[in-house]
């Protein structure tokens, strides 16, 4: 974990309420896809945990949804402004445990961390199949970016206005191993149709680094903290 000051390079909407922000600063504590940063937004007391979409040595991309006053403030920040964030939080996906033919399954604002995951998998010679789910056509983002990685991508929308009609589970085919991030009902639906996998959970956090016990979760291996022991949990440890 590192407390880092970042300069905002860009902050643009991808859809009506999803924003992409690129940041310039020290990313050395980010080790694995699926980790997150906890952003101090001026005037707001608690930090806002946002997953890392992509990173390189000195730059970082996050994609966030405006869901409340804090993320709304974030959406008004401009290139050249500075923010600070605790970086390198959470466990991230364990790349060593992934078999040859995994499906990456993302829903809504759960999609961003899966981009860095797909990129890392390509780097180690695994080509994942990517299944993305959204509510409607206007909510769809990052399909082209995934395709540009050279991985097969399929999109489903609940109302059928784009791609297949239905949920992510309708387009994941017969893949046995899932790498998943999205709202909890979606995680559970995927959990029920695959044999193994890694699932990223959301939680309302206090500190984001394991101190406050605000985001505890019961697992088959005892009480875990979503922020520190997670947010990624393996299929065999999850209790719904």
């Amino acid at each position, binding site marked *: 974990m590192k*407390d880092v000051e970042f300069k905002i390079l860009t902050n643009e909407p991808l859809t009506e309420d999803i924003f992409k922000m690129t940041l310039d600063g020290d990313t050395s504590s980010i080790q694995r896809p699926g980790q997150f940063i906890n952003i101090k937004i001026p005037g707001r*007391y608690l930090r806002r945990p946002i997953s890392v979409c992509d990173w390189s040595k000195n730059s970082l991309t996050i994609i966030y949804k405006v869901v409340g006053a804090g993320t709304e403030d974030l959406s008004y920040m401009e290139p050249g402004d500075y923010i600070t964030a605790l970086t390198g939080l959470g466990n991230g996906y364990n790349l060593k445990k992934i078999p040859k033919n995994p499906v990456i399954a993302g829903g809504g604002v759960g999609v961003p961390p899966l981009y860095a995951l797909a990129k890392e998998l390509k780097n180690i010679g695994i080509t994942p199949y990517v299944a993305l789910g959204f509510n409607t056509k206007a909510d769809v983002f990052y399909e082209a970016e995934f395709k540009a990685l050279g991985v097969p991508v399929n999109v489903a929308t609940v109302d059928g206005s784009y791609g297949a009609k239905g949920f992510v589970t309708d387009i994941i085919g017969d893949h046995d191993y899932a790498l998943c991030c999205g709202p909890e009902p979606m995680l559970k639906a995927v959990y029920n149709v695959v044999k193994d996998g890694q699932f990223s959970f959301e939680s309302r956090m206090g500190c984001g*680094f394991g*101190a*406050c*016990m605000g985001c505890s979760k019961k697992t088959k291996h005892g009480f875990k903290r979503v922020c520190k022991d997670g947010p990624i949990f393996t299929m065999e440890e999850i209790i719904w």
Partner: protein
Amino acid sequence: MVDITTELSGIKLTNPVIPASGTFGFGQEYWDLYDLDILGSISFKGTTVEERFGNELPRIAECSQGMINSVGLQNPGMDTVIKEEIPKLAKHFHKPLVANISGFSIPEYVKLAEAMSEVPEVGILEVNVSCPNVHGGGMAFGTSCENVSEVTREIKKVSKKPVYIKLSPNVTDIVSIAKAAEDAGADGLSLINTLLGMRIDIKRRQPVIHNKMGGFSGPAIFPVAVRMVYQVSKAVKVPVIGMGGISGAQDVIEMMMAGASAVEIGAANLVDPMACKKIIEDLPHVMEELNIDKLSDIIGCVE
């Protein structure tokens, strides 16, 4: 060189800064970030007889200049704390600890006090009679003079270490509760615990946290804490550990002028894991600006 040392019941502290229970775990999240030995002491995570998961989620809500939590004393239980957590912490922190304990009955408080006061690393027992997040215990003990008296008296019979009672601000008259604890033999007092608060998600028309209500902490409660520390310290002779919304060295000075002999830092650790270190480093500079040579001289200096 200014003197930042202070004292609690004969225990010398190199400085008055103590991370508050429930915001510092058993030190593990912090010992990689800075040398814990710079701290005056550490009040570790509130410990109960049995392991507890605590309350259902969500347990956290944000407020202007503060937060509400309803964690509900999640901890691994007394035996694990003594056998595993304290020995691990003792490798990184070599001064007397503040053992924060919480029971659901008088016999539980007694059991905890007996066990914790035998632990060599423990310097002070901080008895939580004021947790707003557990039913049938915690705050129920801390809101009447009779209960506070009884729990204090029974713990004092068995404890080999100084006993500090941690008081709830959610009472009509905190001074009478403080006096009841002192009269029953308390060696000191810790205050304030969190204020009972609530937030509502106006889009969903539902409370933000599952338990509806929880403990409100952070800078927003600092004036309430200063007021209560002032009132209580004027009315009792035993030392007071002051806490509630402290976020900088100036707040430490203010809390000590109100009557605190030492301070605990809570929510500030959660938004800035380096908060205690920064406060300890700032303290001598703020003292110099205010022409304070010896920190203990200002304790309760405000009439």
